[in-house]
């Protein structure tokens, strides 16, 4: 990675973190619920009372809603799987590049 690219890379990551964090501090009153819930509220507003005709499989099996903590656990697992694969390959590509460079400078001598 060249110097300039490295700078852009870091700037991009920082900018995205900032965009995500700023509303949290700027909007003290907000509850930060899901916009999906807002969507279903909107459905009721248009349609009147609405009962979903199908409940999620897992909730049917548990016979209740997935507990919030467990839900965040499963979301975490999803993130973990993704990050694991990404980090594994990123590390591998990074090391491969370094090895190639070392090999090249070795060949020159």
């Amino acid at each position: 990675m060249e110097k300039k690219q490295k700078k852009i890379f870091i700037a991009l990551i920082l900018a995205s973190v900032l965009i995500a964090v700023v509303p949290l501090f700027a909007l003290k009153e907000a509850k930060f619920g899901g916009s999906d819930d807002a969507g279903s509220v909107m459905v009721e507003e248009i349609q009147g009372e609405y009962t979903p005709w199908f409940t999620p499989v897992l909730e049917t099996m548990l016979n209740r809603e997935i507990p919030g903590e467990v839900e965040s656990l499963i979301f975490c697992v999803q993130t973990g799987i993704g990050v694991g694969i990404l980090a594994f390959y990123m590390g591998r590509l990074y090391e491969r590049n370094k090895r190639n460079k070392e090999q090249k400078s070795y060949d020159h001598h």
Partner: protein
Amino acid sequence: MTQKQKKQIAAVSIFSIAFGIAPAVNAMHIMEGYLAPKYCIAWGILCLPFAAAGFLKIRSTLNENRRSITLLAMSGAFIFVISSLKIPSVTGSCSHMTGTGLGAILFGPCSVSILGLIVLVFQAVLLAHGGLTTLGANTFSMAIAGPFAAYGIYRLLKKLKVNHLAAIFLAAAIGDLFTYCITGIQLAVAYPSEAGGIAASAAKFLGVFAPTQIPLAVIEGLLTTAIVIFLESFAKSELTSIGFFKKEA
């Protein structure tokens, strides 16, 4: 494993855990049971040709070069990560991104329909997020419409000789937004408002989704650009083998 890699992995783990603890709420995707069966079936059928094309495309990509599985896995993993992070937005509610832009730019939009489908099934079954009955509709918006928009914009901007990184940023960001627009329209078609019909209803749903999603679309654009920068410096041979570099010439 080198010290540096260990540090990288540790850093990424902390990052992911920090985000995982963030309040979990339903965001995005049409929820289970919220679409009448006829719409579920219609959207599902509409997805089939794309999924079939995606399957064939992925198979031929892998047959051509086994090593492109690295990039394919990374694109899929990117969707996994990005779509699991629920991020607070300026409207005071949370939503998450799609992450489908990267795969669309690298492998074309059809391949992403398979990758997106995997994520949506995972979320529908394990998380009660989205749903099996609404799988077709959600696949259409997130794994087909969004990626096609991203891919189209990327190719168009390339033709117009727009800066390479700017093209990737815009493609990913607009693809993300487009996904939510389609979700809004899907809901509007299923729930036309009494006064004004589908259009009035669409305006309402878009009013809910769009403002929340705009900052997140920007984040998605930024992160997609970041990972492409990484790949361009460390995975040149893979990018060349899937034709990413050639297309730009």
